[in-house]
């Protein structure tokens, strides 16, 4: 234990001195603040606290490393125009893209990655982890790890389809309202105001109590709940484009609404719309996770992160962290999407920073 402490401080001090000597200001600040924090934690929490800090710092460093490498990889395979944008992406955004990539691989190749089927009973209930089952068994003796992988497909797929539906409705109505204007625009605006004044989780619960837990209904209801947000944004962004001269010119040429939307407005509104799609996905994903946590989402035996947390929650009172892994999976994906969206918003919007 003592050697660990000595080596730990030694490495940190040496590294911060090296950073200071080579005039790497940011690296020095980072290393030295880590050193100060470690000193405080070391005094308060002893060697165990120090070990915790060391592990956390290593994890962060590993995450930063993989994000850096992934960004370089993307820059090399992307087209030149896109590569220039990607080069300016902060590490958090690169990390987000990497995580999304990993989730996509897990979801697409789920049957090949997962060692067992999602409804297959392997062992006794809550069997501990061994080399056959990486994370142990759940409350019915099914393999946790396989269910986690399959849930990537089920949970994310459902949230994605609801988001796409919400987006099609919201963005379609928004663009149309912007082009048409008049009473059509006003009517849509009023409906949206009312829909947005209902808390979404509550409304979803109301509808689910009536129609029962049916996947199609969940997707449609969630899409209707979140379409208004998309509508407002699209309407606002497209509203700024519609007053441009080139739209006027196209109108005078005799182009129809559909042409205006497709060829003139959409190309000029893609950046904020893509960012909004990411944000929207986060909201929908969290709402659906909440619903399935309440037992009202995807029904068993189909694997789903939200319901997995609930089913295995009893393990938490024995100090196990396995039930938290599906919840962490939800959080990680949402964080990743948020990181990417944050970067895109910063790039595309006129947020008055700097």
């Amino acid at each position, binding site marked *: 234990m003592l050697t660990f402490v000595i080596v730990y401080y030694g490495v940190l001090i040496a590294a911060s001195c090296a950073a200071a000597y080579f005039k790497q200001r940011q690296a020095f*600040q*980072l290393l030295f*603040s880590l050193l100060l924090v470690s000193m405080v934690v070391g005094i308060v929490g002893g060697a165990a606290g120090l070990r915790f800090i060391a592990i956390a710092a290593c994890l962060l460093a590993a995450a930063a490393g993989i994000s850096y490498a992934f960004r370089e990889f993307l820059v090399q395979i992307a087209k030149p125009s896109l590569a220039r944008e990607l080069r300016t992406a902060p590490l*958090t955004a690169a990390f987000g893209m990497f995580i999304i990539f990993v989730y996509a691989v897990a979801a697409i190749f789920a049957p090949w990655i997962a060692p067992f089927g999602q409804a297959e009973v392997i062992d006794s209930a809550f069997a501990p982890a061994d080399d056959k089952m990486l994370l142990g068994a759940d409350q019915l003796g099914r393999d946790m790890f396989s269910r986690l992988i399959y849930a990537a497909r089920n949970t994310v797929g459902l949230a994605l389809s609801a988001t796409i539906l919400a987006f099609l409705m919201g963005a379609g109505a928004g663009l149309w309202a912007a082009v048409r204007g008049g009473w059509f625009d006003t009517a849509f605006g009023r409906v949206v*105001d*009312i829909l947005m*004044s*209902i*808390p*979404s*989780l*509550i*409304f979803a*619960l*109301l*509808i*689910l*109590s*009536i*129609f029962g837990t049916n996947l199609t209904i969940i997707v449609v209801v969630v899409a209707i709940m979140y379409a208004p947000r998309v509508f407002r944004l699209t309407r606002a962004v497209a509203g700024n484009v519609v007053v441009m001269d080139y739209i006027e010119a196209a109108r005078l040429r005799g182009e129809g609404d559909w042409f205006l939307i497709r060829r003139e407005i959409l190309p000029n509104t893609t950046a904020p719309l893509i960012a909004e799609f990411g944000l929207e996905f*986060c909201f929908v994903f*969290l709402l659906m*996770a*909440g619903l399935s*946590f*309440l*037992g*009202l989402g995807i029904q068993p035996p189909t694997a789903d992160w*939200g319901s997995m*947390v*609930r089913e295995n*929650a009893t393990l*938490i*009172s*024995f*100090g196990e*962290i396995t*039930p*938290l892994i599906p*919840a*962490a999976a*939800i*959080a990680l994906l*949402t*964080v990743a*999407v*948020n*990181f990417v969206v*944050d970067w895109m918003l910063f790039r595309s919007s006129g*947020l*008055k*920073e*700097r």
Partner: protein
Amino acid sequence: MDKLLRLIGQRLGLGLLTLLVVSVLIFSAVELLPGDLAEAVLGQAATEETVAAMREQLGLDRSAPVRYLEWLSGAVVGDFGNSLISGERVSDAISERFSNTLMLAAYAAVIAVPISILLGIMVALLRNTLFDRVANVMTLTSISSPEFFLGYILILYFSVKTGWFPAIASQMGDTSLGDYLYRTFLPALALVLVVTAHMMRMTRAAIINLLASPYIEMARLKGVSPLKVIVKHALPNAWAPIINVVALNLAYLITGVVLVEVVFVYPGIGQLLVDAVAKRDFAIVQACCLIFAATFILLNLAADVGSILTNPRLRHPK
């Protein structure tokens, strides 16, 4: 002043109208039931006679608008009829739980509001420093985590591993305030974590937007001290966005509370709603939804009115 009153009156009227439309939506949603209410409640085992008796008991022989008006006029004075499953009065089931939920939300708000506004202003002033970046990542992480994730993490570390706080907040009864605060600390903390992150980000955005405006730059250029710039120039205009942020997040608390209550088995209205949904007890579902929606709309209304009242340009018309 006239203009101000008219604006507020308009907003209040609009809010009332929204509430009315929402109540129609909540009522008519049940009308969408396949078959009708009586069949849905009795389920598969229903015979002709029992369905007919149930219809009469529920008053389904009258037209929907009449029943809506009856339901609404009852709801206004706090009478939501009887539960479809247990037959007890809905208002009895709700009243105590509603005050429990309000207590929890108020507890969380009292902690979260001052902290998040202070931190939000600090982060806005220190923007683009390391501190700001770290705060940005932390708030994003907190926003992105489902409420039940935060709740279970708190249970795992503060209750199971260390035993500092009780994990379950179900036994209420006659407890002193101190005891209550101790027992409900973890659910309140879970709510605080989510809401603080939201509020910090919104406060930061509002303040940064404000600090970028030309008149602040003007004040700086003429040599006013930084503190004075903030207190005398920025703050009067910052109240409106800050009030907005607070009210919006309190409204958010109202929905976030449902999941947290379920995690901590807290006897609040959110848990009642979830149970009623599972049991398909529509009378309770409707009542809970109406209460949640009304609170949500009222808080949004408060946000609007607050920002109108604190807007210096409206208070001192030219």
